[in-house]
């Protein structure tokens, strides 16, 4: 890695640091505009005044806000994300437990999105203004328009309840012990450990939520890819490749698609963050034990430290995804590589 790239990376990381601080400030403000009393939550329903005051001291809620903020930020610097008021558990540890589930879900969804979206985009572009194209476009817009929670319920109703092909919710059946973690991603671990049964079962559980989650992303990829393919197929270099008698398949799959994939890549970077964000809906529907469900249940209970933690993790993911996309751009686009 040369020095320029290192310097660039450092600059981006520093920028990300500033953004994260901004995020922390924002979430902290939100957590504290609420006219609620977290100590009452911490102390439990039947607690008397003495227990509530005890909880207030335990969680440092009796300190002035600037001090609380300082404690939170300095905790972050040490890698601590604070404690959940409702459960007293460390948010960092909770996230470490739930994030792999979400990551696995998002990775699979992205995989589905790419492997369906790109070919459909190409097909649609090749068939521009034919009925295949119209159908694909309506399909693509549907992906964005379908409420994920409703779509999820419909899939559950069809494939789990009516047909009984797939399980309704959860990540594994009750009697299946998850494989010992290597990566923390259940499917990967099952594969690495050669536990095919667990892998198959895990797949049957993740399939529906991953499909629902992938839909908007798939649709975006499809739309961008189609538009860019249409553009690329009209481009002068495609015409000259045709004139030079280059194999038509190669023109589509290499000459045009390579160019169309660049903007598609940018969309993937953007969508990664959105996708993580929409896990709050999908995980709620499918009882998927990830950070989305964690965020929703905490937020509804008025427990904000977990929500702040989830916001930070998703923000971080968003930034990382965009950094990776920028770097990939440099790899794929020779124009960016050298002056």
């Amino acid at each position, binding site marked *: 890695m040369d020095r320029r790239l290192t310097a660039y990376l450092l600059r981006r990381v520093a920028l990300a640091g500033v953004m994260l601080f901004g995020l922390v400030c924002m979430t902290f403000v939100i957590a504290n505009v*609420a*006219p*609620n*009393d*977290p100590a*009452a*939550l*911490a*102390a*439990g*329903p*039947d*607690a*008397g*005044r*003495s*227990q509530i005051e*005890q*909880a207030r001291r*335990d969680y440092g809620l009796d300190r002035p806000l600037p001090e609380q903020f300082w404690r939170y930020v300095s905790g972050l610097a040490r890698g601590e994300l604070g404690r*959940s008021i*409702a*459960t*007293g*558990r460390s948010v960092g540890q909770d996230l470490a*437990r*739930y994030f792999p589930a979400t990551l696995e879900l998002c990775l699979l969804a992205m995989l589905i999105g790419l492997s369906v979206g790109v070919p459909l985009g190409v097909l649609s572009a090749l068939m521009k203004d034919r009925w295949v194209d119209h159908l694909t476009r309506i399909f693509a817009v549907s992906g964005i328009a379908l409420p994920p929670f409703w779509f999820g319920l419909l899939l*559950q*109703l069809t494939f*789990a*309840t*009516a*047909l*009984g092909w797939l*399980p*309704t*919710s*959860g*990540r594994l*059946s*009750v*009697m299946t*012990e998850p494989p010992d973690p290597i990566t923390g991603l259940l499917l990967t671990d099952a594969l690495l450990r050669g536990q095919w049964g667990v892998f198959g079962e895990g797949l049957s559980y993740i399939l529906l939520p991953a499909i629902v989650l992938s839909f908007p992303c798939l649709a975006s990829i499809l739309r961008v890819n189609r538009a860019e393919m249409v553009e690329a197929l009209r481009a002068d270099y495609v015409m000259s490749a045709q004139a030079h008698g280059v194999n038509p398949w190669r023109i589509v799959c290499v000459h045009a698609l390579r160019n169309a994939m660049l903007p598609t890549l940018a969309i993937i970077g953007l969508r990664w963050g959105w996708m993580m964000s929409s896990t709050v809906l999908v995980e*709620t*529907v499918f*009882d998927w*034990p990830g950070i989305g*469900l*964690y965020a929703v*249940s905490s937020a*509804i*209970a*008025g*427990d904000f430290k977990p929500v702040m933690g989830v916001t930070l993790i998703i923000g971080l993911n968003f930034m990382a995804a965009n950094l990776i996309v920028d770097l990939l751009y440099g790899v794929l686009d020779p124009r960016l590589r050298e002056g």
Partner: protein
Amino acid sequence: MPSRRHILGAFALTPGTSFAFERDGARKVLVFSGNQAVPVLDPHVRYDWSTRMVQQAVYDALLKYEGSPPRIVPWLAERHEVSADGLSYTFHLVSNAKFHDGSTVDAEAVRFSFERALRLNAGIAWMLKDFLRPENIVAVDARTVRFTLDRPFAPFLSYVPWWYIVNPRLVTANAVDGDMGRRWMTENAAGSGPFKLRRFDGNALIHLDTVPEYWKGWPMGEAGRLSGVIFRIIREAAPRRAALQRREADAITNLSPDDISQLQRLPGIRIEDHPGLSTFGIKFNTQQGPTADINLRKAIAFAFDYDSLITIHNGAAVLQTSPFPPAMAGHIDVPGIPRRDLAKAREYLARSRFPNGGITLEYVHVQGLEDARRIGLSLLDSLRALNIQVNIVGQPWTTMVSRGSKPDTAPNMTSVYVTPVGTDPDTVAYQYHRDSWGLFYGMSHYDNPEVWRMIEAARAEGDHAKRMELYAEIQRRIVDDQPEIFGMLANRLWAMRDYVKGFSFSPVRLSGEVDLYPMWIDA
């Protein structure tokens, strides 16, 4: 309704045949499912129905509640004595009780556990905190422990079953920074109960193994003993119900009345439907705003459509006839407790500061509580007759409690479920004491010094008959002052496969909580 049958046939029953209960080797595993997670297992830090169900499975206490009406039976303590002045309680422990690591449950463990709970000052601590100081718990000998209260406290024994005994050796070994093992105990157990933790993921699944050599033995006999129990958290009603139908779960709870009426019709499924102890009331703000006016409160109470409470629950509820639940000692049916009577309602309204209505009142419920929301709709519908608008607001628990802590901010009306943790009437009566002001069950900021005096007196009264007399009067007075709409007691509901045996109901347990110890599968 043929159409519904048809749907049911299509949606629900097809897969049922291919599933059976879980097995672990030769033994069976019971899968129980509810909606509520168990984030913190520490018995001295937290309790709610799901948490306490698991705590009850892995821990033992000196005494235990059983049956309906609930009785207190000896458990770790084979017997106990109370001194004549009502201050000193002496418990004698059984000889054979062992923690899961093999060490004996001795008097020191009991002392340690009570002290730990009091010092942590969380969870259950409120029950005894004001009467018992840690230094007044003495391990007299290895099998005798004595508690000396600061002042007489009649409900003492009714709380003891919720004070679980933890293994001092394990707790001390895992203490960090003087936290008395709090961090470790969040996800680990140090108990002597009938079950051990096998897998603990408080948000998704808790797998408990039976302890074969449990000191108390197994009521169903060794042959019927389960391999263990899985508590699976399924947050949504529909998939939970589907899980029961597909036999992915053997027993489920947190059911809506409509779920029950649905499941009742299915073969192989049994409904457990029992009168509960939790009261639902709509607390008025008696200090500030329009509802400070007793005539308005009465008007609302007479306008409310009580029958809708029963209809909403498909009949699985009974109306309150007193502030106290019927199962509570000292309960009386208070004569004249309001029922819908629009003429009377209008009469009271005419006497209030708002003779023609024309006001909007806020009705707050905990966000996500379906029943409370629906009752809000019913209230809204009822009060239209008085030309009173209702603004239904769902708020997080924290916000609701924080608002209710002061009369200035407390909502006009707040829907509140209250579950007494013991059978002693003081548990309920004390809600109406000044000390409860601002706590969630004290949101009405009920102000009647005479009632307060009677509550204090009843609390310290040793004579049972006199105590009950006092409580009867307290109930009458409270109904007179109408600090709330006295609502209903919803039935506790479970649905289980018919091969699930050993279920025993006790109203003192919290909403979905079951005693897992006696349960087994007969198939």
